[in-house]
């Protein structure tokens, strides 16, 4: 993962709009995901109740996260897993590199893990002499292209089939094909060699079950299961908010996750991993290391944005967000794009380093409508905007503008005077037709759209003329 650069949001968004391949990829893949989700939710009559239940369980976890984590650590430890706690990204990287060194690992296969991207795991391991091969198809494609994932579920959603075909042809030297099964076959064949050779498998965790110390991983390619079971060592990188109280809660979350993410009733592969291989087990890693990453989350837990830690990374809020759908994930500048990212990234990176993200939304509310755990994302985006003002992150011009506007609106008389001036100017300049050009900061609007001309006389004045000021019209 390269350095975070959410500050470039505006420019990145503009280039995303001008990228025809990206636009083609988005308008092909996202509607399909949305339609599948819609159908899957419609086919599940208890879905709304399931959302309520999941949101309650997540609240239960966040009320006592320390207790649930302690329980997970104790239970997983009892079953032979080695647990490591990492305060921040640097510590997590050191721990992972240390494990690789200790175990003498030179090749690792990795499943998709967004928290690994968050802490910059791959470069740290590469620096420690471990080559890391991505085994999730999307991550594999993105890595081949030398890019970052643009989605928390479908990493390569920004690439067209033709782009992937060219990539496999040019970078891997495979014969050119646009057939998806053939492309998947190529990746599978190449990854298989790596799976057999790798000393370590790295995965994230979708859920950590506290009462049994189990790690639950879902994938559609099956790569997570192979990475977790085939190599000698399994390294799990999980953020502390992944914990759920009971293994018995898992079916509820799996149901919500699969339907919200891909519109499946259940993901193709669900692995519940409890401890390393025991004597007599037919398969499984000899060693299981679990790195629990805090990296700012216990601070979030204390504040008003606590509920963002309930996020189960389904990506539904990305798919439904009209802004994400227009520009894709790279413009957000870090591993977490879309509405959930626009809340989480400023909290993890600090608002000054991610200031544009809370503004990257029209607050239309679509994200809150689909969130399987009912996180009030628009409310949080709004609160972050208010924090930006309170922390002095707004430009003086914007603050002045806001004050002038509030001043003009403080008295109806002042407003009416301004409206009449605007009406006269509009008649003189534009003859009350649509306005085709406005100066900065409104020039962006008129670049592609007209702006309506102010009416010659405002409603309040016309009303007074028509009805007079009677007892009902103070």
């Amino acid at each position, binding site marked *: 993962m390269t350095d975070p650069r959410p500050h470039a949001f505006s420019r990145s968004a503009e280039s995303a709009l001008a990228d025809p391949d990206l636009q083609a990829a988005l308008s092909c893949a996202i509607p399909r995901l949305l339609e599948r989700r819609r159908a899957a939710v419609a086919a599940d009559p208890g879905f709304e109740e399931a959302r309520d239940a999941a949101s309650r369980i997540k609240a239960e976890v966040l009320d006592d996260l320390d207790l649930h984590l302690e329980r997970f650590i104790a239970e997983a430890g009892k079953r032979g897993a080695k647990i490591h706690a990492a305060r921040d990204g640097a510590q997590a990287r050191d721990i992972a590199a240390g494990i690789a060194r200790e175990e003498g690992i030179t090749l690792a296969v990795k499943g998709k893990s967004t928290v690994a991207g968050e802490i910059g795991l791959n470069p740290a391991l590469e620096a420690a002499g471990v080559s890391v091969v991505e085994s999730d198809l999307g991550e594999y494609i993105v890595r081949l292209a030398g890019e970052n994932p643009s989605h928390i579920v479908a990493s390569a959603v920004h690439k067209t089939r033709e782009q992937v075909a060219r990539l496999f042809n040019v970078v891997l030297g495979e014969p050119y094909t646009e057939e998806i099964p053939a492309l998947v076959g190529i990746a599978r064949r190449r990854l298989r060699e790596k799976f057999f050779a790798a000393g370590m498998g790295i995965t994230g965790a979708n859920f950590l079950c506290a009462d049994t110390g189990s790690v639950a991983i879902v994938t559609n390619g099956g790569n997570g299961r192979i990475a977790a079971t085939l190599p000698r060592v399994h390294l799990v990188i999980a953020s502390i908010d992944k914990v759920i109280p009971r293994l018995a809660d898992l079916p509820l979350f799996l149901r919500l996750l699969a339907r919200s993410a891909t519109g499946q009733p259940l993901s193709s592969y669900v692995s519940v991993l409890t401890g390393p291989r025991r004597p007599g087990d037919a398969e499984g890693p000899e060693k299981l290391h679990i790195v629990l990453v805090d990296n700012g989350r216990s601070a979030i837990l204390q504040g008003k944005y606590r509920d963002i830690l309930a996020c189960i990374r389904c990506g539904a809020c990305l798919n439904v967000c009209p802004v994400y759908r227009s520009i894709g994930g790279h413009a957000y500048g870090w591993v977490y794009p879309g509405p959930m990212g626009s809340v989480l990234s400023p909290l993890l990176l600090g608002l000054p380093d991610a200031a544009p993200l809370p503004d990257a939304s029209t607050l239309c509310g679509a994200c809150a409508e689909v969130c399987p755990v009912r996180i009030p994302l628009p409310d949080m985006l709004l609160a972050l905007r208010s924090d930006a003002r309170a922390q002095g992150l707004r430009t003086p011009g914007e603050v002045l503008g806001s004050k002038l506007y509030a001043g003009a609106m403080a008295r109806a008389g002042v407003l009416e005077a301004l409206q009449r001036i605007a009406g006269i100017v509009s008649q003189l300049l534009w003859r009350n037709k649509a306005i085709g050009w406005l100066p900065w900061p409104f020039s*962006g609007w008129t670049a592609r759209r007209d702006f309506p001309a102010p009416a010659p006389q405002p409603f309040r004045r016309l009303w007074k003329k028509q009805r007079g000021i009677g007892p009902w019209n103070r």
Partner: protein
Amino acid sequence: MREGRVLSYTRSMIRKNAVENAVPVSLFFTCLADTFAPGVAFSAVTVLERFGARVEVPLSQTCCGQPAAGSGNFREARRMAAKLLAVFDGEGYIVSPSGSCAATVRHVYPVLFRDEPRMLARARAVGERVYELSRFLVDVLGVTDPGSAFAGKVTYHDSCRLLQGPGAGSAPRALLRAIPGVELVEMDESDRCCGFDAAFAVRHPHVSAAMAERTLERILETGAQFVASADLGCLFTIGGLISRSGHPVKAVHLAEVLAGPAEAAP
């Protein structure tokens, strides 16, 4: 001709009833309608009076503060909210030809005054009385037929803030369907945000325009003559694209359709 007479007789009966059982309504006409589209506010009055409301228009109102609140400028937003709460203090319904302005009072004011119990109580009291026009007609007055003479093929764009709250998209549709001259043709993704949000449109005009263009494509696919919406903001962005591109479709406010063409533009 005869039909016209019957209609006008019915209307006069409705008006007579109206005076006797008048429902007092304060019109929250919104700064956008006030400044840019007085016809929308007049249309709202026409429809409300048609169904027996006694419309009061407090002229000391200005703006609900949505642009300030939405961009996180809570200090200014609170000032404006306090003003609106003072203007509409009292009893009776408050009706606005805007889903987003109504939603600002109902849903955003409580956020602004989270830490001020006295103002929070006032915000809640006023918020409960605020309705978007079509929801007021359907949910409160029980209107099934708006009695409009509007004619044409109309598609409806859900303004996204209006969607907040269950079934928000159903009232406008029920009313549009009941107009004899209106053929309602549904556009695809009618509830996908058109990119208008005052602060967003200024900060990210290109993304906003791209979103609007997508909405316009969906509108054009229907072959409708009119696109109606309950928010002027949506109509500004969609209408701005239409007037720039010269497409044969007209952006009209829901209130104008409900009122009928005669009262559409004074």
